[in-house]
C-alpha cells in the first residue's frame, strides 16, 4: 500500500527537483534571456494597448482608469502561479503521445506533483513583478485606505484566485488523455485569461452566467478584486471566491489523475 507522505517531504523534494530544472535551464542562457525578454515584450504590449484605449475612452462601464488598472494587475498576479508552477502541462500532450509519460507512473510519489514539479518557469516571475507594480501603482492612485487588514485580504484573495487559472489549465491539459491534439483546448483556456481583465458587468445576463459558472474567468480577477475595490459593497460571490477556487482546482486535479490512471503507454 502506498504510504502517505507529509507536506514537509514534498516541499523538500520539490526544491530538489526544480533546482535540477533551473540548472539545466541556465545552461541555455540565451534561451532564458530571450524568453524573459519575450515575456516582458508581451506585457509591455498589453500595457500599451490598455493605455491607448484609455487615451480615447476615459472610462468603461463606470470603471475608471485606475480601477481597470487594478483589475489588470490583479489578473496578472493571479495567473502567475499557473505560469510558473504548472508550465509542464504544455508538455503533457507530447509526453502522452510519445509514451514518455510512463516514467512518471513508476515513482512512489504523487503523480501530478511529480509531473508538474519537473518544470519551474522562471520567466513568469517577470509577470509577477509587473502585476505587483501595477496593483501598487493603481492602489496609490485610488482613494482606498491602505491598511494591514486590506493587505492580508489582498494576498489571500490573490492566492485563492490563482487556483482558478490553475484549474482551467490543468483540466484543459488533462483532455489529452482522451483526445489527440489537445493543443487547441489548452490554447483556448490560456486565451480565456484575457477575459479576466474586464469587469463582468459589461456582459449581458447569459454571458455573465457563462463567465461566472461555466468558464469561471470572472473569479480570476473581477470577483476577488471587489473585496479591495468596493469594500463597502462586496457581493456574496466575492467572499465565496476562495472556496470556489480551491474547489475547482481539486476537481481539475481529480480529472487529471483520472486521465493519468487510465493511461497505459503508447504500446511500444
Amino acid at each position: 500500500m502506498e504510504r502517505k507522505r507529509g507536506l514537509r517531504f514534498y516541499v523538500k523534494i520539490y526544491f530538489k527537483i526544480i533546482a535540477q530544472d533551473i540548472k539545466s535551464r541556465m545552461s541555455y542562457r540565451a534561451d532564458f534571456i530571450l524568453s524573459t525578454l519575450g515575456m516582458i515584450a508581451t506585457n509591455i504590449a498589453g500595457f500599451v494597448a490598455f493605455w491607448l484605449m484609455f487615451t480615447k475612452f476615459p472610462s468603461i462601464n463606470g470603471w475608471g482608469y485606475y480601477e481597470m488598472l487594478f483589475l489588470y494587475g490583479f489578473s496578472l498576479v493571479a495567473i502567475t502561479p499557473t505560469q510558473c508552477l504548472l508550465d509542464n502541462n504544455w508538455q503533457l500532450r507530447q509526453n502522452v503521445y510519445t509514451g514518455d509519460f510512463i516514467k512518471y507512473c513508476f515513482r512512489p510519489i504523487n503523480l501530478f506533483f511529480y509531473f508538474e514539479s519537473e518544470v519551474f518557469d522562471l520567466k513568469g516571475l517577470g509577470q509577477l513583478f509587473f502585476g505587483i507594480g501595477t496593483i501598487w501603482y493603481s492602489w496609490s492612485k485610488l482613494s482606498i485606505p491602505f491598511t494591514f487588514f486590506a493587505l492580508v485580504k489582498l494576498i489571500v484573495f490573490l492566492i485563492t484566485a490563482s487556483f482558478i487559472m490553475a484549474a482551467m489549465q490543468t483540466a484543459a491539459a488533462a483532455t489529452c488523455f482522451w483526445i489527440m491534439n489537445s493543443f487547441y483546448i489548452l490554447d483556448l483556456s490560456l486565451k480565456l485569461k484575457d477575459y479576466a481583465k474586464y469587469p463582468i458587468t459589461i456582459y449581458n445576463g447569459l454571458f455573465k452566467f457563462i463567465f461566472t459558472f461555466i468558464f469561471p474567468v470572472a473569479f480570476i480577477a473581477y470577483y476577488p478584486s471587489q473585496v479591495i475595490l468596493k469594500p463597502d459593497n462586496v457581493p456574496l460571490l466575492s467572499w465565496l471566491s476562495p472556496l470556489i477556487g480551491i474547489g475547482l482546482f481539486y476537481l481539475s486535479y481529480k480529472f487529471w489523475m483520472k486521465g493519468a490512471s487510465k493511461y497505459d503507454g503508447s504500446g511500444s
Partner: protein
Amino acid sequence: MNVKKYFSLTRAGLIETLQFRIALIVMVFGNLLYLTLIYFVWKAIFASAGTDVVNGMTFETTMIYLVLATALFNFMELYIVWDIHRDVQNGAIAIKLIKPMRYKDYMFWSVSGAFVGNFVFTFLPTFLVVLFVTKGTISIGINLLYFMIAVIIGVFINYEIDFIIGTICLFTQSIWGINIMKQSIVLLLSGATIPLAFFPEKFRAVVEWLPFKSIYDTPLTLLLNDDLAPEVIWSKLGIACLWAIAMSLFSNLFWKISVRQVTVNGG
C-alpha cells in the same frame, strides 16, 4: 514555370488541415467566444464614450474591423517559425535544402494548403456572418476586390516576417521568446488589437512608417471605406507592395547568409 509542384504541396497541406477536425471545431468555438468578448468590451466602451462616432469609427465599423482582424490573424498565424525550428532540430532541413525548390518557397507552399483551409473554414464563415448581421455596413462592390488584393499582399508580408524570425532562430536556437515578441508587436502595431484610427496622432505617425499596418489595417480600411479616392487606394496598395518586395529581398539575403549557420546534430 511548372506550377504543378507548388499546388501539390497546397493540396497536401489542405488534406492535413482537414485531418484535424476537432482542432478546427475548437478553433471555431474559441473564435466565437473571443468575438463575444470583443463585442461586449467595445459596446461598453462606446456606451461610455457618449458619442456614436469616435475618430470616424462607429461601433459597427469598429466591430467589423476587429472581428475581421481576428479572423485574418487566425488564418495567417500558422506557427511557421516553429516549423522551421523543428526542421533544424530533427535534421529534416538537410533533405529540404536539397529539394528542387528553395526552402522558403517549399515552406510557403506547404503551409498554403492550411491558408486555403483556414480561409474557407474560418475566415469566410466569419465574413458572411458579419456581412449579414451588420446589414449594409459593408458595401459590396469593387472594394471587395481591393480587399482581396490587400489580403494576399498581407499574407506575403506576414510570411516574410515569419521567415525572417525563423532565420533569426537559426542563430539563437530559441523560439518561444522571439516568436511571442513578434506576435505581440505585430498585433499591436498592425491595428489588430485596437484599430489604428484610435491611436494618438504621434504614435500613429510612427506606425504609418512600419510594414505591420499593411497586414491588417490596409485590407480592412479598403473594405470598410468605399468612398476612398483612387489615389488613396493605389497608394495604400502600392506601399503594401513595396513592403512585400523589400521584405522578400531582405529575407532572401538574410537566409542566404544565415543558412551556413545550420548545423544538424549527427546521429
